[in-house]
Structure formats: structure tokens, C-alpha cells
């Protein structure tokens, strides 16, 4: 059984959503350079498309910006028509950055100390890691 610790992406990165028409972008920025490759490995186009399945994006494109330790996701047709057409209270999709930041990310032992935020990894998995 894997003893990998899983944490929400929010502990590795921060993010902001922008919108243009029916297209949404989510800029994801690593909190630490060493966390960036973990995000690149696990926040794939396929993983993000699956996480956003109920928004039914026609396409998810991912752009890597290693000098900024950032990833830009572009989700086509994910806004139910966009700011003027959607019936969503949040017709801009402003809140979607936090949907992405709730994606679970597996982190190796060495990365735990680099995580942001004050909610710890699940106690059981911490115990697993400290007492293999």
C-alpha cells in the first residue's frame, strides 16, 4: 500500500482565474521552486479535465512557464456561455481557481516542509511517514 501523503494543491500553489467570453484561464503558481515539478507532473491536462468534468470543457490546454514556476490552464467552453450568458451566480467563473486548488496532489517526504498553509496533512499519513 502506498504511504504517499496527499494534500490539496492549495498547499503547493496559489491560483487566479480569468475569463474571456466562454473561455477560462487558471494561472497556477508554485509556492516554492522545488514544488513546481510536482505540479507539472500531476496537474496534467487530462487530470484537470477530469477534475472539471461537470463543467464540460471542450478542451483543456496547459502552458508551462518554468521561469515563473507557473502553469497556465486554458479551459474552453467551461463557463456555460460566459459572463453575459451563463446563469451561474459567478458567471465569470472567478471561484474556479479554488476548485483547481482542491485537487489532491501526492507529495514526497522531502516536500512536506515546503508546503504552505497551516492545515497539516492527514494525521494517519503523517504517522505512516514517520514510522514506516
Amino acid at each position, binding site marked *: 500500500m502506498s504511504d504517499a501523503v496527499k494534500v490539496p494543491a*492549495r498547499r503547493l500553489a*496559489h*491560483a*487566479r482565474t*480569468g*475569463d*474571456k*467570453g466562454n*473561455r477560462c*484561464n487558471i*494561472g497556477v*503558481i508554485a509556492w516554492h521552486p522545488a514544488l513546481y515539478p510536482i505540479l507539472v507532473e500531476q496537474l496534467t491536462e487530462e487530470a484537470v479535465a477530469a477534475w472539471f*468534468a*461537470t*463543467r*464540460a470543457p471542450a478542451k483543456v*490546454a496547459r*502552458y508551462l*512557464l518554468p*521561469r*515563473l514556476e*507557473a502553469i*497556465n490552464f*486554458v479551459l474552453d467552453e467551461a463557463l*456555460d*456561455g*460566459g*459572463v*453575459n*450568458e*451563463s*446563469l*451561474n*451566480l*459567478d458567471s465569470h467563473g472567478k*471561484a*474556479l481557481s479554488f*476548485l483547481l486548488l482542491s485537487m489532491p496532489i501526492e507529495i514526497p517526504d522531502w516536500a512536506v516542509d515546503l508546503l*504552505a*498553509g*497551516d*492545515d497539516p496533512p492527514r494525521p494517519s499519513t503523517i504517522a505512516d511517514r514517520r514510522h514506516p
Partner: protein
Amino acid sequence: MDTDTLLVGCAAGFSGDRTDAAAPVVRTLIARGRPACLVFETLAERTLALAQLRRLDDPQAGYEPQLEAMLGPVLADCLGHGIRIVGNFGAANPVAAARKILALAGALGLSPPRVAVVAGDDLSGPSFRPLLAARSGEVTPESELISAHAYIGAEPVAAALRGGAQVVVAGRIADPVLALAPALAHFGWALDDWNRLARATMAGHLLECGAQVSGGYFADPGYKDVPDLHAIGFPIAEIDAEGNCVIGKADGTGGCVTTHTVKEQLLYEIHDPAAYLTPDVVADITAAEVRQVGENRVSLTGVAGHPRPAALKASVFSEGGWVAEGEISYAGPGAERRARLAAEILARRLPGLALRVDLIGVLSVLGDDAGRALAGRPAGAAQDVRLRVAAAARDRGDVERLLRETTALYTCGPAGGGGVRTSMRRRLHTRSCMVPREAVRTSWRMVAADE
């Protein structure tokens, strides 16, 4: 002291932004004692269509409604210290906005400033209909078109500044133009100096949402803490002769400028980072770097530019029917089940109307219009739930039924429902298209006080 930089302070990031934001920015610009200008971005896509509707009602309206409140506190200081003002607060009626500014100056006892207006963005007139129909693939009946505007570039704004304008009033200029145009006028770059144009464009991009680069829209307690967010300072870019910039903010204010706030805003509304399309240049941020160079000071370097696109983006707005919304709250034990039952009642009472259902407190903004997310979520035991239902239709009468049925839930719906609110509003239909640059003639001119 570095004398060859231009300071660009931003005092608004959207229509409805704080009207007390400008004063600390202007105080800081004056204290720096360097060439400076103050910019206001007040024009989201939708804002312009709404402004056009106001102008149809009143030929003297159609510019930024907060114009006087935004400029009033700083106009005298800006004019007195040579700080030029550039804004897209002209919206659908730049000439009326210019006259308002001249009247404001008069009321403040100032001698009349040189106020210029920029024209050419408005494609709402009949002569543009065939072009828009051909380019957007959609024919809008004459009676339904509200507005059409092209995103125009920095040339006419920079020309107005070089022509001596103290205030430049524009409508639909591309947002980054607010910084690019003053930089063009100040440094005299060629219009095909793609790298410099791209760098200053990205400075404008960082400024265009006001406090969003200086700690606004950033705070996430425990993760991203921002000092004195209630008194957030608006940003100031120091643009150098190469177009590179350092982002700072007004002195003595809250908020923060860090590599993280700058990176978030750098990527905001960007699609392909190698090709950020603007009327003036295609900017490429794939090799961009941000560095903390002081307290609340972050530099942006490494932006590259490519030749500007052959066509300009235009947004076309037309009548989009009506939207209605109804809400009712349920609380205590069984609240979620009662809210779901109320939603089911509405669906059965309103056949033929596609309802968007939100259970606020359970699942709302992360849901979808088709209800896929809510359908996949088993009924839970939430104890404070606000049902919100929305629908759109071409005809007002069709969505009005939703208002009546929501209200009827008081006596005919599940137990304990309270706090009904209903609203109805016009909807705008929007589409974008590309129009050839040659079809859009831009110009500028000074406006006389007695026009």
C-alpha cells in the same frame, strides 16, 4: 535618482472601483517628482454595452457614471503637477465625458484643462453592419444591435498626449494601452519596436485591474495574508526606456506587492503566454521573470514582442432576452431535502423552461447550468440552504413565470421556506470577431468647453 523612467499610477481597475483610491496614488506620484501619469480602467466588455444603453436613453450619458467621484479629488493636483490623466471612462460617449471633466475643472475653480477625446472604436453605426455580419457569421436585426466596438491601440492616445492633452478620454481602447500610450509618448519609441511595446504592454496588463496586483483579490487567510487589506494601495509602475517595469504601490497604504501578487496578475486572462494579442503588439511572456527588488517593489523583465496582429478584435452586443432569478431559504433539520423538494416543484410547474438550480450552502457557484454537478451529489443533511433558481428566455413573459412560482412556494411549497427574493433583468448577447485594421479609423481631438 533615475530620471529616465515614467511613472504610471493606476486609480481604478473597473467601473465601480473605489473612488478614494486615486488620492494616495497622486500624492505618491507628486512626492517622487518624476514624469508621471494617472490612469483609470473602468471598462469591462459588458460595461460598455450598458453604457451604450444609457446613451440611447439620454444623449448626454453613456460615460463612466462615477467619473466625477473618481476625478474630483485629484484633478487639481494632477493638473497642478503636470500629471497627465488617461482613462477609458469615456465608454460609449467620450465627448460627453470630456465636457463633464471641463465642467468639473470649472467648478473646482481651475483654468480649463486641455482635454482630448479618442474616436474610432465605435462600430455601432449602420455602415459597419455588413462588415460585422460577415466577420462574426451572425446577422443581427437592426433593432436588436446595442453596440459594437473595436479594441483600438495606443497610437491615437499617444498622439493626443504628444499634442499636449492633459486629460485623454477614450472608450474601447485595449486595457494595456493605458500604460503603453503614455510610455510611447514619453519615450518616443517606434511603433514597430516590438520588444519595447510588448514590455510596456505587460506593465499595462499588470496595472489594468487596479489593486489586483498590489494584494487585492489575493488574500487567503493562513496561506496568503495581506496587511491592511481594508486600506489597500493602488499600483504604480515605473517604466524605463527599455519598457521594463518595476511595480510598486502608493505610499502609506495597505496591501503588498510581491512576486506572488505579480505572477497571479501577469497570468490573469492570458491564454497562450507566447502570444498575448493586443492591437499594438503580440506579447510573449514565456521568458519573463519577476524579482523582488525592494519592499513592495517587484520588477518584470524578459518580456518579448512580435509584430502586431493584422486584425482588431471587436465585441458586438445585442438584445439577449431576459433572465429571472428566484431564491428561498430553508434551515434546520431536513433543510436540504426541503430545498431539493422546492426545486423539484419548480421544475414540474415550469415545463419548457430550463432551470439552473443552486443549493447555496451545499453546491452553487461550482455547479453548472445543466445541473450535472448537483445531480452527481447525493442529498445531504445541510441545515442552512438557500435555493436559487434562474432561467433565461427570449420573451419576458416566459421568465416572469419563474418569479411567480418562486413566490408561491411560501404557501404551496415545503415547510419553513422564507426570505423569497425575485429579480428580473435584460440579458445581453455578446460575440467577438476580428475586423480588418483598415476598417477602423482612429483619431483624436481636443474638446472645447463650450461644445
